[in-house]
Structure formats: structure tokens, C-alpha cells
């Protein structure tokens, strides 16, 4: 809604008031929400933007000549500019709206994967990928004869460049698809270095930014990313909207994914011609309200500013590592040099599920399981972990509550 963004000082109490749900009680306790990496809560500004559209300015986009449709199209397309600016894309036409990060990766696997990659080419992913950045490539392998290779991670949870060298050695790798931040270990990957590495060897790079985009400034041109994907719902926006960024010439080389309204230039029975990107990849009525909500979320985050968010979350993460490390029998997984506010852990004698349930009784929401990263669990020698993750609204007190809660878990399971 606000055209010019004014930076606010980082006022945590005020920020928390922006998120109505943080007032909630769970089992008679104030909610301590440490599951934002799965999906973040929504600020008032996002709720208001969606309500405003539904109450005052809504119609289908692109296809109408009337006032409501024109204004809704303007609001919707303005978000493409916001996302382009957020990522520092060279052009708004490099931004494709999808449902979520998962669809963004599948779109690439179905179109770039089947039309540009050739049987015999290889795709490399890392040992710490979310299923969203593994299963689409397995499906591509099985349907299209592209080889799938796995680059190892070190015990610290970082990409192993020796292993990367090996995977690339025969020159058949055409795509490196790798996370920008692990949703299990909190590791940030060295994306500029990875992009350079891939490009020097004639491969493109796809970055799964679902976690990273929430916590730090991303500049796709500085990184020289070929593809960058993320989900709106983790960035304080609504569910149902995701982003695929790709370089213009790559998008132009890609055939469409889904067919239908809005993605065509002309249609006859014999032959249809496709619209230019990004519309080529956006078939049917899009997630209009959700896109508008995402725009409000981007404005919100940018008004606070990534430097302030990153500083706050760094403090949280350091504090969390310090207090959790003091709990005997608790093991934090991963120790990357560059890591963010996602902490997975196990506790001697207590299964992750029991930890999560016992914390929930105390109003503390953490996640437990394989976090859609089953192969990584195998690499770490566990079947499941508990995970606490932090957002811009998380407080030091909440981390202390987690630590206290875990000590109670130990008492039950001790």
C-alpha cells in the first residue's frame, strides 16, 4: 500500500503487536511459536491488504476492461515489481508467480528439465535438500533419463567442495540445484561461490531460497543465480503464492508448464502460440488476493529492513545455541560457520515426537520429524529431530522458555 518505505527502528514490542496471533493462549499458556520455518505468522498489514481487496477492490485480473478489473490488475502486477526489487532482478518479466516454492522447482523440472536438459545430462543436488528440491529431479530422472547426483556435506553441515569437484568431473553436469539455507541445519550455502563454480563448468544454478529469503537480503544479480525460488507463506505472506525467478533468456527458452487462459498468445485447434514470459507460465486465474498479500508482506519486511532483522536473529541464534548447549544429553545438529535461526536437536532418551508434545503442553510450538529431508536424516544418523526456528518476532524470553521446557522434558524422560 505504501509507495515509499520508511525504515523503522527495530522495536520488538511494536513488531509483536503487528502479529495478532502472538497474543494467543495454548493449553492456558501464552503461545511461544518456534515453528516459523514451516510457515510464518502474518502481520496486520498483510491481513489488511487482503481484506481491503475483498471489501473494496476485487475482480479477475488481466481479462477485464472495467474499473474493478483494471485496479485489481494494477495491484496484482505491482507486486511483480516489488518482488523484482526484493530480489534485485534485472526485469519484472523475470518474476513468475506460482503456488509455492515446490511448484516453482517442479515448473523448472517440467519445462527447462524436459526441453533443455537432455538424456545423459546430470543434475546435482546436495545431501541437505528439502524433498521439494529432490523429488522433482528424481521424477525428471525417471521420466527423461537425466542423471541425478548427490553432493556430500561435511559433518559441520556445509557443502563439501571436494565432493562437488568429483560430481562435476566428467563435464556432464548441466544444473546444480541447491538450497540457499537448510531448513534442518540452518546452514547458509556460499551461493556466489557455488554459482561461479557451476558457471565455470558450463552448468546453471538453481537456488532454493525458501528459508534464506526470510532472513537476509538476496541479490540474484550479485549471486548470478539462474533460478531462485521461494514461498510467500514463510516470508510473512499468505499461503498459496510462490515465486520463481529466472534469467530472462532462460525463461524465454522454456516451453509452458500448464495450458489454459492467460498463458497464450492465440489459440486455434491446430496450434496455439504462447505468451511471452512471465505470463507463459501463469495459466488460469492466479492467486490474486494472495499475491496482493505477499506485496504487503514485502513492504512490511523492507520497512524493518534486512540488516535489522538479521542482527536480531543472529542474537537469538547465538543465545539459543548457548543455552541449549548447556542441557546435557541435548545435541544440536550442524555447526556451519554461516548459519541462521533454525536449530535442530535430539535429546538422549527422548524421541523428537515426545519432545514436541511435551513442549506443546507448555504452549511451545516446535516441529519434530524428518522435516521433509529424509535422506539428510540418514546422513545425520537419526530418524527424526526436534526443530526450533526463529522469526523477526521471536524474543530472547521465548528461547529461555524453550530451554526451561526442555529441562522439564528431561525430568519426564530422565
Amino acid at each position, binding site marked *: 500500500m505504501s509507495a515509499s518505505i520508511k525504515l523503522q527502528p527495530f522495536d520488538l514490542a511494536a513488531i509483536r503487536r503487528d502479529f495478532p496471533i502472538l497474543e494467543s493462549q495454548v493449553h492456558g499458556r501464552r503461545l511461544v511459536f518456534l515453528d516459523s520455518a514451516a510457515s510464518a505468522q502474518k502481520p496486520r498489514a498483510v491481513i489488511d491488504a487482503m481484506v481491503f481487496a475483498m471489501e473494496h477492490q476485487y475482480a479477475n485480473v488481466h481479462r477485464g476492461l472495467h474499473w474493478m478489473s483494471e485496479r485489481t490488475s494494477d495491484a496484482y502486477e505491482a507486486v511483480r515489481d516489488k518482488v523484482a526489487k526484493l530480489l534485485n532482478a534485472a526485469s519484472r518479466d523475470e518474476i513468475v508467480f506460482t503456488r509455492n516454492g515446490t511448484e516453482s522447482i517442479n515448473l523448472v523440472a517440467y519445462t527447462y528439465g524436459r526441453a533443455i536438459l537432455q538424456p545423459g545430462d546430470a543434475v546435482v543436488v546436495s545431501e541437505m535438500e528439502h524433498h521439494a528440491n529432490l523429488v522433482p529431479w528424481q521424477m525428471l530422472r525417471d521420466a527423461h533419463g537425466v542423471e541425478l547426483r548427490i553432493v556430500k556435506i561435511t559433518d559441520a553441515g556445509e557443502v563439501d567442495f571436494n565432493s562437488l569437484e568429483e560430481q562435476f568431473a566428467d563435464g556432464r553436469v548441466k544444473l546444480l540445484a541447491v538450497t540457499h539455507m537448510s531448513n534442518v541445519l540452518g546452514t547458509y550455502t556460499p551461493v556466489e561461490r557455488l554459482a561461479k563454480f557451476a558457471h565455470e563448468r558450463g552448468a546453471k544454478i538453481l537456488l532454493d531460497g525458501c528459508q534464506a529469503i526470510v532472513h537476509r537480503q538476496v541479490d540474484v544479480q550479485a549471486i548470478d543465480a539462474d533460478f531462485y525460488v521461494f514461498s510467500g507463506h514463510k516470508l510473512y505472506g499468505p499461503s498459496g503464492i510462490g515465486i520463481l525467478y529466472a534469467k530472462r533468456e532462460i525463461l524465454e527458452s522454456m516451453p509452458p508448464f500448464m495450458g489454459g487462459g492467460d498463458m497464450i498468445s492465440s489459440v486455434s485447434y491446430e496450434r496455439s502460440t504462447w505468451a511471452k514470459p512471465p505470463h507463459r507460465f501463469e495459466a488460469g486465474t492466479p492467486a490474486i488476493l494472495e499475491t496482493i498479500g505477499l506485496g504487503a508482506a514485502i513492504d512490511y519486511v523492507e520497512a524493518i529492513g534486512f540488516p535489522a532483522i538479521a542482527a536480531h536473529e543472529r542474537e537469538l541464534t547465538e543465545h539459543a545455541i548457548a543455552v541449549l548447549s548447556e542441557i546435557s544429553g541435548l545435541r544440536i545438529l550442524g555447526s556451519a560457520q554461516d548459519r541462521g535461526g533454525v536449530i535442530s536437536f535430539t535429546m538422549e532418551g*527422548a*524421541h523428537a*515426537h515426545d519432545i514436541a508434545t511435551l513442549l506443546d503442553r507448555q504452549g511451545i510450538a516446535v516441529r519434530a520429524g*524428518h522435516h521433509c529431508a529424509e535422506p539428510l536424516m540418514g546422513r545425520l544418523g537419526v530418524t527424526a529431530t526436534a526443530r526450533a526456528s526463529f522469526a523477526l518476532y521471536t524474543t530472547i524470553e521465548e528461547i529461555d522458555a524453550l530451554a526451561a521446557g526442555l529441562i522439564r522434558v528431561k525430568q519426564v524422560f530422565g
Partner: protein
Amino acid sequence: MEASAQIYHNVIMDRFRSPRSAGRPENFDAEAEGNNPMCGDRIHLYFGREGARVSHESEGCAIMIASAELMADAVAGKTPAQIRDLRADFESVVTTGAENPALGDLNALANISEYRSRIRCATLPWATLGLALKEAE
């Protein structure tokens, strides 16, 4: 922690900490494997027809392991038909949360009904026993 005590009942923690039916027996008539891919819970179950003896090798959460233990107690000496009825009654307890006086200690798991995603932890041993019973037929 009174609230959590409703779920991590003494009976449950006791059977989780000191399982009595764990391990591979020398003789058995059927075996079956169960797992919950969503969390990695895994149970290997052995069934002896005579006296309906159940033992298990389990890796997983307290709810699953305690449930396997309490199941082993509950089915001992029962016929396959009785076991199937018991399973249905037990599943109704853990999905509705309403205790069933006829089920004795199995009612210790009633409060898991609040946690839809944990109900599978409690029912996994029973589903696996179902497989073993089929094999034993």
C-alpha cells in the same frame, strides 16, 4: 506439568522405560514389520500362536513403545477374533478420547486423541499385529 501428565501417564512412562515384552523370542509363528514414514517410528513384531504371545523390537517414541507393551499384555491368551475386536475398541479410545472400562491399562493412551498426528504412534503396533495375525492364519 500436570497437563502433560495426562498424556505421559505413569503407566506409559513406566512401560516405555522398562519394557517387558521387548526382544526377539526363540520361537514364534509369525512376524511383521511396521513403520511410520512420517516420523521414522519402526516396530518389528513377533507373534506366537499359543497363548497369543507378542514381543517386539521397537525404535520410536514413548507412545509407540508403550502402546506395543500394553498391547502385548492385553492380547495375551486371546483368540484372533477377540484381538481384532480389541483393536477396534482401542482405536476408538485413542481417536475419541473416551475411555472404555473394559480395556484396563490400554486407557492410559486415551489422551493421545488430542494429538491427531500422534494417534498413528499408538495404533502402529496394532496395525502391525494385524499383519502378523494374517500371516499366522
